């Protein structure tokens, strides 16, 4: 996993500093890692331990070894959820990052009227709390009395209920996109802002057009941002939880308790008291996520080479 994140390599200067004290660095990283250990590592370790047991309402706790893992690996509800988030990942992440990138490039081009206004408005959805988003989207998606319904009445169109069957996943994808386009846009935009001017000057001299500048200078320059945004988006997709859980009361028959793996783990733990199995599902999902993120990282870096 060490190559996973490849922030800038630590060059020779660091080596020079090592002489001073091998451990000084920990003085800076230590506080973060201490809290991190408390709120991330300890619960994970606890979950690993939990995943080896089974607790029953009647009968108490017993050691079951890897039974929970065996069960998860052959659990169709779990794998259906994994399939669903994979599909989601393949469609939603490219769309979202694509829009984010385009907007970031547009903002960065300096060819927009009202650049600051757009930067603010597009980022705004990220600031909306989930509870509020649920209210808003519940209204927007309402087929009978909501906006979709109003739309259909007004224009005589026949937009189907976004919260019915096949459209639920796109409906969720839409909310996620809405929330995070601005967020990713800002990441790309700030990466673009620090591309060294000298590169543009060189391009100008070469007479390169705007598209050439984008493909030859801008995109390679922000590759690091793109890769990391992709990795975190993958993690986000695999952990998809908030949006389906928000929409669930509005579409209970289409968003099942095992709609996504994370929702499944949540339901197992919070409505079924099956926290041993829930911990197992979470750990397997964690491993899967890491594997995918790792592959993306490798590919992203290879292209760079």
């Amino acid at each position, binding site marked *: 996993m060490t190559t996973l994140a490849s922030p800038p390599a630590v060059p020779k200067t660091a080596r020079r500093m090592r002489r001073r004290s091998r451990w000084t660095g920990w003085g800076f990283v230590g506080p973060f890692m201490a809290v991190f250990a408390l709120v991330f590592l300890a619960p994970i370790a606890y979950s690993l331990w939990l995943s080896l047991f089974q607790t*029953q309402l009647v*009968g108490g706790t017993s050691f079951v070894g890897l039974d929970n893992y065996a069960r998860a690996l052959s659990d169709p509800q779990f794998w259906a959820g994994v399939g669903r988030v994979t599909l989601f990942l393949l469609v939603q992440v490219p769309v979202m990052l694509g829009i984010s990138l385009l907007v970031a490039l547009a903002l960065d081009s300096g060819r927009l009227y009202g650049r600051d206004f757009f930067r603010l408005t597009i980022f705004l959805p990220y600031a909306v709390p989930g509870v509020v988003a649920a209210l808003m989207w519940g209204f927007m998606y309402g087929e009978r009395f909501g906006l979709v319904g109003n739309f259909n009445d007004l224009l005589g169109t026949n937009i189907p209920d976004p919260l019915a069957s096949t459209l639920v996943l796109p409906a969720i994808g839409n909310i996620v996109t809405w929330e995070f386009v601005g967020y990713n846009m800002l990441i790309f935009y700030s990466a673009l802002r620090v591309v060294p001017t000298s590169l543009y000057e060189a391009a100008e001299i070469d007479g390169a057009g705007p598209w050439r500048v984008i493909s030859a200078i801008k995109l390679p320059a922000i590759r690091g941002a793109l890769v990391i945004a992709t990795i975190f988006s993958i993690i986000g997709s695999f952990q998809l939880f908030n949006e389906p*859980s928000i929409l669930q*009361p509005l579409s209970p028959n289409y968003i099942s308790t095992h709609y996504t793996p994370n929702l499944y783990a949540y339901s197992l733990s919070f*409505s079924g008291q099956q926290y041993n199995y829930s911990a197992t599902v979470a750990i397997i999902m964690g491993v899967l996520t890491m594997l995918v993120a790792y592959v993306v990282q490798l590919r992203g870096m290879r292209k760079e080479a």
Partner: protein
Amino acid sequence: MTIRHHRAVGAVAAAGALALALTACGSGSDGPSAAEDVTPEDVAAALEEGGDLLVWAWEPTLDKVVEEFEAEYPNVDVELANVGTGNDHYVALQNAIGAGSGVPDVAQMEYYALPQFSIAGSLADLAPFGASELDGTYSPGTWNAVTDGDAVYGLPMDSGPMALFYNAKTFEEAGVEVPATWDEFVEAARAIHEHDPNTYITADNGDAGFATSMIWQAGGHPFEVDGTDVTVNLADEGSTKFAETWQQLIDEGLLADVPGWSDEWFQGLGSGEIAALVTGAWMPANLESGAAPAAGDWRVAPMPQWTAGANETAENGGSSLAITEASEKKALAYGFLEYANAGDGVATRLEGGNFPATLADLTDEEFLAEEPEYFGGQKINEVLSASATGVVEGWQYLPYQVYANSVFPDTVGQAYTGSTPLTDALGAWQESIVSYGDEQGFTVSE
């Protein structure tokens, strides 16, 4: 009392590493609190002596009850905390019990959730405090819900005998009579929808509480519980009656596919496009505040019957107050319970819009004579009280009903999308219930 929860998933969090091994099941005759009976004098003494009491409840009318209680017993300091409605509340409670710290002395318990906590040994048996003597104080449906054999696990706070709430204007416009039987209900559903395709007799996209109440009214006993022995049969006569009738409404598209308590739902109730609701007697207050535009249009009629002329009903929703086994101030807590649910607190709550569980109030002249304007001056409490007397006896919830209800949409909900018949969907629900019960160590038979 929650009717339905907004948080998606059913409740009750894991109890952590602590096994909620069943301690005393069923009779409750050997719980620690039963070792010696507590006399009313002990309770009075505890109230006199005072102390702090932590109460977790979301029932809004309790605010005032607590205020008055503290005025009456100045040495008692009640901290009333709303830790969430329904599911969130149970999650918090289960977490606190699992962690063994921060457990409240008193917790609100919906009737359907009570067995889950009582069978796990999390609730104190109130019989030794003299709760058994309150038998006869409450409507049979609610008393049955809080007792298990000789043990009493809570005192009923309110009740939800079911009735037919309907928008008289919509019915008139459609020229439809108010249905008295379920067959008539189906007929009325057709007529109303035919008259105006945007109007539906009711909204239902699958609701565990509603479905179980319907089965209850139809005389079904899908869940039978004796200690850790559980029998599940969602294909019994009552369940089938419900399924067959409701299937017609689903097939013909006569139900508004609007989830309860959503803003669309309130809109429909306000606009008259959802013409009726078959639900618990607590509904008036919610209609008044949530469906204000339809003021004056709504009326209440008896719940439609399976046999013409009968008075058979069921409870829907409603909750009690219970004392946790972990409480160290059970006598004091019982003093509060008695005040709130059997004493002066009852009147205060009724004023605040609660529907009573106490028989005396259900038959109170003044209560019955109330003529709320929202319902066009109809004496609705007469209808609702009559429903309370008709609640079919012998109903039981599962000792893990909260979980079962959480997977209801996964299984029975599929019938509402038209992908499977309701009877099959009930079978799928039964399958989930059975396998979960087995997994949790219950002895489940079908």
